[in-house]
């Protein structure tokens, strides 16, 4: 029957499905392990032990920074400076987690690219609503209904039957 008698030498594009796929970049042709000087992928005991030492060091640093975070919250600072300092310490801690625990330092360009893109959009998403709200009173006097309302009961005391 015609359907099965195709001569491949004619360059006929017909192929039949079934059978195992072959990895286009197979291990034999392109071995991954030898080219990689990436410590995260080197499984020798010596390399892994070195890594473990790094993890413990980072752990200790993170604990110290946590204490620092709580400590600086007791210092009396103007709002903006307090926020900036708190976020700075948090960013350092986060960077340590990302760089060493998540191996971002030795990670591929593709991952970096995705993260840089994400951070940019994250920034846009934080900027937009904040910019609009912080400008609102200037742009449209009387815009902020809260300002004209009596302040709600401060929630430091227990509330009863509030809200819903």
């Amino acid at each position, binding site marked *: 029957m015609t359907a099965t008698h195709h001569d491949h030498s004619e360059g*006929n594009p017909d*192929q039949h499905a079934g059978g*195992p796929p072959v990895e286009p970049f197979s291990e034999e042709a392109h071995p991954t392990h030898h080219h990689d000087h990436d410590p995260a992928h080197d499984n020798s005991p010596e390399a892994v032990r070195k890594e473990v030492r790094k993890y413990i060091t980072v752990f200790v640093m993170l604990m110290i920074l946590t204490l620092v975070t709580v400590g600086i919250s007791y210092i009396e600072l103007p709002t903006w400076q307090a926020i900036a300092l708190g976020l700075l310490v948090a960013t350092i801690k986060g960077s340590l987690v990302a760089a060493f625990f998540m191996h971002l330092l030795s990670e591929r360009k593709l991952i970096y690219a995705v993260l840089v893109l994400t951070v940019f959009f994250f920034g846009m998403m934080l900027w937009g609503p904040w910019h*609009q709200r912080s400008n609102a009173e200037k742009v449209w006097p009387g815009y902020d209904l809260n300002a004209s309302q009596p302040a709600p009961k401060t929630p430091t005391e227990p509330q009863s039957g509030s809200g*819903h």
Partner: protein
Amino acid sequence: MPPQRQVRVGNQWMRARDAQRALEEAIRVSRAEEASHGPHQSFISKYVFSVDHKWIGIQYGVTALTFLLLGFSMMLLMRYQLAWPGKPFPEWIAKFLGQSNAPGGVMLPEFYNQLGAMHGTVMVFLAIVPLAVGAFGNYLVPLMIGAPDMAFPKLNMMSYWLYLPGGLLMMLSFFVPGGAPNSGWTSYPPLSIIATHGQTIWILGMIFLITSSLLGSVNFIVTIFQLRAKGLTFMRLPFFVWAQLVTSFLLLLAFPPLEAAAVLQLMDRVAGTSFFMPSGLVVSGAPLDRSGGGSPLLWQHLFWFLAHPEVYVLILPGMGIISEIIANNTRKPLWGYRSLVGAGVFLGFMSFVVWAHHMFLTGMGTAISAFFQTTTMIISIPSVIILTALIISLWGGSIRFTVPMLFALAFLPMFGIGGLTGLPLGLAAADIHLHDTYYVIAHFHYVVAPGTIFAMFAGIYYWFPKVTGRQMSELWGKVHFWASLIFINGVFFPMFLQGLAGVSRRLYDGGAQYEHAKSAIHTNVFISTCAFLLMAAQVPFIINFFYSIFKGRRVTSNVWDATTLEWAATTSPPLAHGNFAVAPVVYRGPYEYSVPGYTAADFIPQHVPDDAPPAPDTSTRGGGMLPAGAVAQKES
């Protein structure tokens, strides 16, 4: 072809009817042989919870097309009310709608609002995106890159099985007390917070759908990066795959803010929080007992942060489909492939920084409005580049007016109109007049309806032979095309004029109570009539579609003489068997049509090596529509 005509099969002449029967028999035998191999897969694991991207694509396709029909039907109910406000529906429709929605057969304004919100939600989230990405993307992307399946087949199955319950949940909302969600597909607070129960169901449904979409987008991106065949570099990818890649990034990064916002709205509705509820709100004469301090604009920011990239999700796959069809039916490479890719990526990036052009009238202030107006103007550039490249691609082409090509050709001016009419909306000053009018409705429907949906139709006619091994009827395809083209323009073009006159959106009576609308609303009768005729025009398509699955003309695997990898697999590649006997290796770009110096055929598929002997001359009458490697005909 006529059954009596003689065709050559192998080395003998026989009647076409006999050849058809012999082919059917051969296929039946080979399928039976296959089925006898190895352990039998249960029906549930093969067809219900399938992990094969092809079957999942078909599941998505059938489900999405059903929702498309449902969404269209909702609109028809609305159009009846708009054309003849207060007129009772015919008996059978009135009985179906029930007394709570249409007492005495007359639609209630509340029900009109429900239909409006559901039409938008169903069309955007349940019909178009699942069709464009879930159906076309799932079925074709692995095939086009020469992969055996998606990177995460089980995740793929989960994506579908989150989509279907989410969709059914949304539709179920019509039956709860208070009915379906009725605060618009945009669900603006404070209205959506105090609205009826249906809105909570909308939120829950959205959470299902967003999760489904997130899993899918991870799958697509990993598949495209990791599973490309050898030799398939990024700049050799069909533009359709690029479009799906950008679309998946949009879905990945833009949907989570809406998921967060949906959770916040759910909290406002059921836990009494005030994320979106300002202080001092008075409802029906009584002050609302809430802590207040919230911001309705916060919802708008978070919603539109998704919903703007979402509209590019709606159009990009369609552009991808049209590109494939144009290259194939002009028998020449696309003009400006690099520009197309660059424009597509730039478009995806820019789509994240234009969202507040939906909020020009919220009193944001001139600085922020100027920023978003600027980015909106900039984003029109890549759209124009893409459209221009596609139009120039036609120049010098040997155009075959197949049904897919007709839809593709129509897409170009229709998307042109849709895109250009977006410009006044992007200019904050003009938007003051046009915001929330029928002009907006006309603009976005032009892009999505004669734009994306025509691209979907084009794709269905084009890839139907690949999926089913049969071809849809060309004649009825052309009837479907011309009728749809004429009536869809009849529906949406007058809406521009209505909008310019100032007729507002979402009005139950079509604007009858406004003085400024009086000049324009008489066109509602014309529009509604065209809408009903448009629905009638879909009937030949639906019949053609189902009939051709069982009785359509059988065709070979590369019926359109196309170059991309999906045509190298057999027709209707069997499930759970991988897609290719041997993983294809790619030697050239995706659109090697009419290659100078190559006389054997007017195309070279991507996977054919350079040193292969030239294929036999399969073109008759200058590259016509006959299938490759097929049959010579005796002129009787």
